Each structure stands twice: as structure tokens, then as C-alpha cells.
């Protein structure tokens, strides 16, 4: 019995030491819920866009998210955080979308998944509405012309109707994927903007004949 207790204690010691001394524990933050993003990200106005997801491990998975933090008055930064499995599952459909934003005026924070950079749309500090063929479309000022590039908008031109829809969804705390589902996991623009993610997660058809042929070629010849 004593041997089992000793073995159990040694296992705990190993796990404890490994956790506290492992390089992954340094320099990478952990967020268990979406409110964790708020503590992690200072400054305003900002928009946190989920740009990639990744998991490591065989039986016990560790989940990582990559966010692009687009600020109003400074350049963007990319951050990688560890997340809980629940949060990963919750955010999975919102790839390429703004998950968190903080407004400049009153520091209001919202977590409704919206098209990337929706915080900047309608803000007169960053741009203005211009009339194009009878439709009011948002244009950034020349100073902020890089913001749509950072946001990977591609050919997305938000209109006033879309802006209204964004505001309604935000007030009702309902995700908004854009008109005709442009953003999110199945969004056309997201697929175009983040091809690496889709390439990586694409299920590969394993042909055993080809597999063995390649294996023998690589390892024995």
C-alpha cells in the first residue's frame, strides 16, 4: 500500500513540476471564458478578431486561439492564447469574426460575434458614408485606409442597412455573419482570407496503397 501512495505522490510531483517548469507555461495566457479577453487586452477602440484555431495533444487536447487585435490609432497585433475546450467549441463558428470589442467613448465592451471591424463602421472619427448608386457605403478616411486591409475585408463594402443590422444584433446579443453569410466558419470572405486554416483542417482521404508505397519509398529505399 505504501508503495502505491509513494508512486501516486511521485506522479503528482512530476505533474506539478512539469506544469510549473514547462516552457508553454511562460509567455502564453490562458482564457477560460470570453470575459478573459477583456482582461488581456488594454486600450480602446479595439476589435479582437478570431483568425485561427488550433489544438494539440492526442487524448487530452490543448486548445489555442489566434486573435488579431485591430486598434483604431495604432497598428494591429497578433496574439495566441490557450483556451478552454468549452470556449473553443463556442467560438468555432465565428472564425474570421470580431469576438470582442471595446468602444472608445465610454469604454463599453461587447462580446457579440460580428463582422470584423464593425466597431469602426459608423464612427465618424474613422470614415464617412458615401453615396454609391443610391446606396450609402462606408469609406475609411485616407489616414485609416489600412484598417480594411488589416481586417481582411476583401471586397466587403458595408452599407447603412448592414450597419443597422449590426447594431440590432449587437443590442440583442445575437451573432451577425454579414449579409449572405460573408463571415464565420462558412463565410465566403473568411474562406478567402484564411485559406491556411481550411487547408489544415480539410479531411484527407487515406489511400493505404499509396500510403505504404510512399512509406516504403521514404524509409527503406
Amino acid at each position, binding site marked *: 500500500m505504501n508503495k502505491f501512495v509513494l508512486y501516486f505522490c*511521485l506522479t503528482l*510531483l*512530476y505533474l506539478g*513540476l512539469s506544469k510549473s517548469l514547462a516552457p508553454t507555461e511562460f509567455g502564453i495566457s490562458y482564457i477560460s471564458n470570453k470575459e478573459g479577453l477583456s482582461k488581456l487586452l488594454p486600450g480602446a477602440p479595439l476589435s479582437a478578431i478570431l483568425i485561427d484555431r488550433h489544438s*494539440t495533444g492526442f487524448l487530452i487536447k490543448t486548445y489555442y486561439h489566434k486573435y488579431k487585435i485591430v486598434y483604431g490609432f495604432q497598428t494591429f497585433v497578433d496574439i495566441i492564447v490557450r483556451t478552454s475546450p468549452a470556449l473553443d467549441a463556442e467560438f468555432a463558428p465565428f472564425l474570421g469574426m470580431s469576438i470582442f470589442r471595446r468602444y472608445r467613448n465610454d469604454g463599453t465592451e461587447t462580446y457579440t460575434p460580428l463582422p470584423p471591424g464593425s466597431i469602426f463602421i459608423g464612427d465618424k472619427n474613422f470614415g464617412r458614408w458615401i453615396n454609391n448608386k443610391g446606396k450609402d457605403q462606408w469609406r475609411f478616411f485616407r489616414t485609416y485606409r489600412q484598417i480594411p486591409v488589416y481586417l481582411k475585408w476583401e471586397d466587403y463594402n458595408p452599407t447603412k442597412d448592414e450597419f443597422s443590422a449590426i447594431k440590432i444584433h449587437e443590442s440583442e446579443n445575437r451573432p451577425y455573419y454579414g449579409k449572405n453569410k460573408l463571415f464565420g466558419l462558412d463565410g465566403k470572405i473568411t474562406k478567402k482570407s484564411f485559406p491556411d*486554416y481550411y487547408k*489544415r483542417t480539410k479531411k484527407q482521404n487515406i489511400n493505404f496503397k499509396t500510403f505504404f508505397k510512399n512509406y516504403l519509398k521514404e524509409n527503406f529505399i
Partner: protein
Amino acid sequence: MNEVFDKLLIRVLFTVFICLALIGYKYAHMLFHPSQKKSINNKIFPHDNYIFTIHFFSRLIGIGLIFSAFEFKEYLGVFISSFHFFLWSALGIFIYLLSIFTIESIIFYNFEYKDEVLKKNNLSYGLISATNTITLAFVIRCIFKESENSIIILTILWLTSMVLIGFGIKLFKFISDFSFNSYMIQKSTSIGISFSGFLIGNTIIITTTLTNEHYQITSYLIQIILKCLLSVLILPLFRFGLLSIFKINSSKTLGQASEQEKIGHSCYECSIYITSSLLASIVIGQIHFGTIYPFF
């Protein structure tokens, strides 16, 4: 053709140089082990005392192992490469002999070389001493390779390995059914076999833990400690697995056993420990997880 002759000549010169280094080893050995001064200074007759033969020639194997860790970089110049070899081999000899002295003081703290080898002809003493010197040579060789010509890293690694080996030796009483002191006094060969297996097993584990990629000494030492701890967890599992798979029954009490039975038991302990250590070394050092940092 000239080039070929030149290269051969250089090789012969380096061979002579290594032999000269061996003379250095001989005198350094007498410095560390004054009790063996007489037997080393006189002519050696291997057939006279086979315990002495085992004891002495194991050290020669050890020093050969240490020297095999060094390189001659002739392209840097014959003088510089010889000087480099001389300096590092001298350091190797010094560290090796100091290690033997330290570890033998731990293992044989109740026994004297003169009594056990020259008077009593204790085979167990000879076996354990021989295994200890050869296994230490493997560890020192590994340290020299890992230190990559850095004296600071060499010192740290040497001290760490000495602590690990010393600590490992103290675990023998928890692993073996043999009582070291009483069986050594009885001159039972079984303790020699069992303890030798234990030393070989420990060396396999220690050399595996030392063989890591290292960029920073602190994280490297952390990895060594973690791997040692992991080996303590994995090794009993393999031992249990081996005993269960091959249905080995080792429950006989050694007190009433004959010498033959004791030797059989010691062979079982020796082989199981070495096999478990080798298998554990796969789990400790040969599973590569790739990068742990998210690379996306």
C-alpha cells in the same frame, strides 16, 4: 599520394600522442588511488590475481571510453588540435578519476581495496568496481559530448550527474532483495551481479536524461530532473510488465537459498533492471513530440 602519406603520418603521430596521454593517466591514477601505487608501478601479471585484473583492466576500458569522446581537428593545425586534445583529455582524466573516487567512496564506504582485492580476493568487489568504472566512463563521455567544449556546462553537468548517480546508488536497498553489506562480507558473487545490473541500468537512465538539446542551462537542468523523475515513474511499470508477461516468480527467501540459487536470483534482478531501464529510456528520451508551441 603525398597527401595520403601525410594523413597516415598524422594519424600515427596522434596515436603516439594518445599513448603519451595514457602515461599521464597512469600517474594521475596513482595520485588519486595511492593504495594501488605499488601494483600499478610494478609489472602486471594478469593471471596472478584475477580480481585485480578485472579491477585494473576495467579502468583501462574506462579511460579508452573517455578518450574516444575527444576529437582532433587537424584542419585547425596540428599544434592547436594536439593542445586541445591534451587539455581536454587531462581534464577528462581528472574528472573521471575524481568521479571513481567519489562514487567508490559511496559504494564501498565499509570496504577497503587492499583487503577485498589483494587479501580476500572478493569477486563481488571486483565486479562492482569494474562495472562502476565502465559505467562512470560512459556518463563522463556523455557529459563531455553534451558540454560542447564549455567548462562551465561541464562542471554543472558533472556535479548534477554525480548527485544523480549517488542518489541512485542509495536506492539499491529499495529495489533489490540483497543486503549489500552482508553479501559483500560473505563474498557472494550474487551481490556483484545484481549491483552491476543496477549500476548499468542507472547509467542507461542517466545518459538518456543527459542527452537533450540544450540552448539554456537552466531549462536543460530542469529537463534532466524531470526526466529522472519520469524514469522513476516509468521504470517500475516496465518491471511489473516484464514480471507479469513472463510469469516470473521471485518470492523465494534468500536467507535459506544456496549460492547457486542466489546467483540465479541476482541474474534475474540484473537482467530485469537493465531491460526495464532500456525500455524506460525509450519512453523518456525517444518519444519526440515535435514543437510544443502552437505554430499556426
